[in-house]
């Protein structure tokens, strides 16, 4: 990895155990979140400013959210945590009849490399700006829950995210993650809708009552 000017430390977190937090509204979920990677930039957690969590997945939506935050809200002293939740699918699922060990391990390595490339891209972005922060990757099936959990861990004051993600996999139908986070996070959430996709209102409106704020 090419090191640019500015501090950068790479750490690999130990895999974490079961997350036992409860959500009073739903039947109880126990979500497993496995830490994959963490990189710090700038002063790291020593940074005196606001702590902000930004969900990133390489999609244009989250890129837009990150850019918007940097253009409109970011202060130089902010401690920015970029969280990526990659799809670390079990390759066996797609290739149940593929018993070629070599092929499988190549696939897994390719996935790892792609993930690292993505995380490096984000790290470099922070470094270029001279931003203090951290890039984290957490493997999980429930991205929304991971975001809320990491917000609590990192004690972030607010969360920034796109209105949708890549939406390529079953687990995240369009907009479900931002929905979840807005309703479960205990801090403000900035949901950035990409103007290029302004007509993507995928939901039919519910009957809305006469409440001024919810």
């Amino acid at each position: 990895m090419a090191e640019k000017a500015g501090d950068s430390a790479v750490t690999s977190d130990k895999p974490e155990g079961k997350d036992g937090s409860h959500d009073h509204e739903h039947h109880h979920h126990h979500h497993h979140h496995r830490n994959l990677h963490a990189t710090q930039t700038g002063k790291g957690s020593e940074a005196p400013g606001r702590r902000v969590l930004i969900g990133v997945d390489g999609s244009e939506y989250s890129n837009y959210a990150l850019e918007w935050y940097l253009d409109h809200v970011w202060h130089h002293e902010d401690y920015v945590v970029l969280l990526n939740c990659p799809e670390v699918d079990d390759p066996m699922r797609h290739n149940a009849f593929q018993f070629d060990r070599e092929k499988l391990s190549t696939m897994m390595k390719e996935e790892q490399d792609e993930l690292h490339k993505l995380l490096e891209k984000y790290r470099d972005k922070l470094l270029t700006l001279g931003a203090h922060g951290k890039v984290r990757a957490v493997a999980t099936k429930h991205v929304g829950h991971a975001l809320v959990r990491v917000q609590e861990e990192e004690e972030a004051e607010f969360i920034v995210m796109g209105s949708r993600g890549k939406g390529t996999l079953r687990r995240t139908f369009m907009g479900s993650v931002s929905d979840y986070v807005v309703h479960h996070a205990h801090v403000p959430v900035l949901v950035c809708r990409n103007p290029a996709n302004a007509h993507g209102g995928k939901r039919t409106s519910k009957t809305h009552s006469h409440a001024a704020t919810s």
Partner: protein
Amino acid sequence: MAETRNVVIAMDESEFANFGFEYYMNNVHKPNDHVVLLHVPEYHTVIQSPMVMTDVSVVTDLLQDEEKRIKAFLEQLGTKLKSHGIGGKVKSVGGNAGEVICKVANEEKANLIVIGSRGMGTIRRTLLGSVSDYVMHHAHVPVLVCKRQEHPHHK
């Protein structure tokens, strides 16, 4: 960048909306921002009153009371802008809150919408509808949904 940004902040008399306003002021506001405090009046008292059908003069009185309350609130909002030294305006537009907020945001060419959140549970949101939900899914610009750190047992 010293460009002017247009910000629409949905306001009602609740502490949640006020929290949204304060949060925006403390964390996002820039001196050049043009802020629209948007109130979507709801004639709760009148609509929910059991006497609506019977006595016209009672309805009129209720409506007038409501009008007075709204007027007072809008003046409060105006004072808020002034005391914070914000360039902007106060708007009151009737209708379905979510739709109105999105419509006004378009008209005002907003760069950002700020809205408070009561943090209603799933069932209440389904039954009553949620304005912040609607705005989040229909706005063409970033939406800052402000929920504050709650005590866990207040859910």
